[in-house]
């Protein structure tokens, strides 16, 4: 295992009275892909969203425990959420490009960070699109609306948009669930490329996808972390029976 990037200690999360996560302890390594699997409603997306404090937007959420990134507790009072989210990018289940041009979609992040130099922006846009493996498809239509792209292209654009802010960690919430197999394949290739430079955490319903792209897999069930380990191990000889049953499709 490489160096550990994210550590959670007894992370417990409530939506109002309802417990969504029950004392999660996990260590996510740097510059590798960690996949969260589990049936719907098991808390894996909630957990993902607490890693960049997106759950703060929901007033009823209460969090106990710690999430340490590089040893720093991100739920400490003096942490600035805005700057935290700049370092932890997020890609959503449904591709959500802004109703702006392709260029402006990518340039938005740098712009709000105070970069207004046109030349520099152009540079960032180009590198981000190249890193997201969509440059060749869109380089001639940068001024066109991003909503004119296909679903798969939109999702890669969203990844490019995330890359433009130069995060260290990228969270992906079922990034390929709404895409066709070919687009999914492209996204998976992209994830494979990105893990050279970024720590990636991905939530997926697709077991094959988890097996294909991830180095580590965590199995969640009913708000608890049931099993966590190397992907190969989880998928071939899991220690816990529940994991095996889920992976082989006997429940879930």
């Amino acid at each position: 295992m490489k160096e550990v990037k994210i550590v959670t200690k007894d992370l417990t999360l409530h939506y109002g009275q309802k417990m969504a996560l029950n004392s999660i302890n996990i260590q996510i390594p740097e510059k590798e892909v960690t996949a969260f699997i589990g049936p719907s409603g098991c808390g894996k997306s909630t957990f993902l969203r607490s890693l960049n404090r997106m759950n703060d937007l929901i007033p009823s959420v209460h969090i106990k425990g710690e999430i340490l990134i590089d040893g720093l507790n991100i739920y400490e009072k003096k942490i600035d959420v805005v700057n935290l989210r700049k370092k932890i990018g997020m890609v959503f289940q449904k591709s959500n490009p802004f109703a702006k041009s392709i260029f402006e979609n990518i340039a938005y992040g740098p712009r709000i960070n105070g970069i207004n130099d046109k030349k520099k922006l152009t540079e960032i846009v180009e590198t981000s699109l190249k890193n997201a493996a969509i440059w060749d498809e869109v380089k001639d239509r940068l001024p066109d609306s991003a909503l004119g792209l296909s679903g798969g292209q939109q999702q890669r654009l969203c990844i490019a948009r995330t890359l433009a802010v130069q995060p260290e960690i990228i969270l992906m919430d079922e990034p390929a669930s709404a895409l066709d197999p070919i687009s999914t394949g492209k996204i998976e290739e992209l994830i494979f490329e990105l893990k050279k430079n970024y720590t990636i955490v991905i939530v997926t319903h697709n077991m094959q996808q988890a097996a294909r792209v991830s180095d580590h897999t965590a199995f969640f069930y009913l708000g608890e972390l049931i099993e966590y380990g190397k992907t190969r191990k989880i998928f071939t000889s899991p220690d816990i029976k529940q994991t095996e049953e889920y992976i082989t499709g006997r429940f879930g």
Partner: protein
Amino acid sequence: MNSDYKKTAYTFTAESLRKKFRFSEYFAEKLITSVAFLSIAIIILIFFFVFRESLPAFKSVSKTKAQTTEAAVNKPESYGGNEAAAEQKPETYNGAEPSAAPQKPETYTGADSETTANKPESYGVVKDSALSEKEVNPDGNLVSSESSGGEGSLSSLFSNEWYPVSENPRYGLIPLFVGTLKVTLIAMLFAAPVAILAALFSSAFAPAWLREWIKPAIELLAGFPSVVIGFFALMVMATFLQNVFGYETRLNSFVGGIAMALAAIPVIFTITEDALTAVPATYSEASLALGATKWQTAVFVTLPAATPGIFAAVLLGVGRVFGETMIALMATGNAALSSLNPFESVRTLAATIGAEMAEVVFGDMHYGVLFLIGSILFIFNFTLNALAEFYVKVRLVRKIQGRGA
């Protein structure tokens, strides 16, 4: 075998599947259709009749020319005559009522009758000579010699003077237009930013419990009677604003504009708020996940995405102000001046109808012009609404299909 087969009862028979006439359904369908057509027809007819009433304004020029000159000559006299007749009345009234003090009223009315009897006469004489000789008006009117006659009445629609009850009536709509546009502009300059920012606050920043209060409260304000707003503007706001800004005319387009902004704000707020909340949460989530602040998200993502809706909201606000009568009547001073100074009195189109409708002669030119104003208001608001609708649709379609930015 064959005969056995025949014996089984077929369920798909021409008998069982024959077309049935369902009377109640037929009736309901026709009823709904006819009511729908009727309502559409009524809307069209309303406009048709309003416009038809404005036809006297366009009546054959030659005919009105003779008539109006005649009328113009006659009018002052008859006007004076009326006055004299009116003078008679108070006398009898006085005579009947206060028997104890007959001295005073008599002297009073006597003096009054003398002065008033003199005035119209001299007035009439001046007018008479001016009209009969067809010279340039001696009272220094700006009207050209051509437009001093009846013919000028129609062409005077584009003149700069609104003197509908003068001896030489002029129906220049320009000052009314200028006034209306001025008031609308002032009202929008106040209402649009306030309403849009309020909607932005309510949709993006306000905590949930506060939003649940703000929105219904402001929507209730939309039903606030404009006469109350007008009264408030007339009595309180006008004085206050005059004290603050120190302008000369107490009632002016500035006061009227602000009062109308009060009426327009709820309209703009409600629709803008709807447009803003209709922006998918995924947009703002994406922006926040990129490390944007709430403020940046609201201004650079949510607001632009809701532009078509906000545009429609502002247009509806303009429509509300444009057609607003009571506030205009009470707070704008009602002087048909076509200046660009916001601190001068104005007379809006709607207020003109409201103020003059009751005193106009049926079928008169003036009557026709008022209805013409009505038609203009109708067309304007119709166009505005159509524009808003059209714009929103085109923009939305373009956004969804992804053409243009």
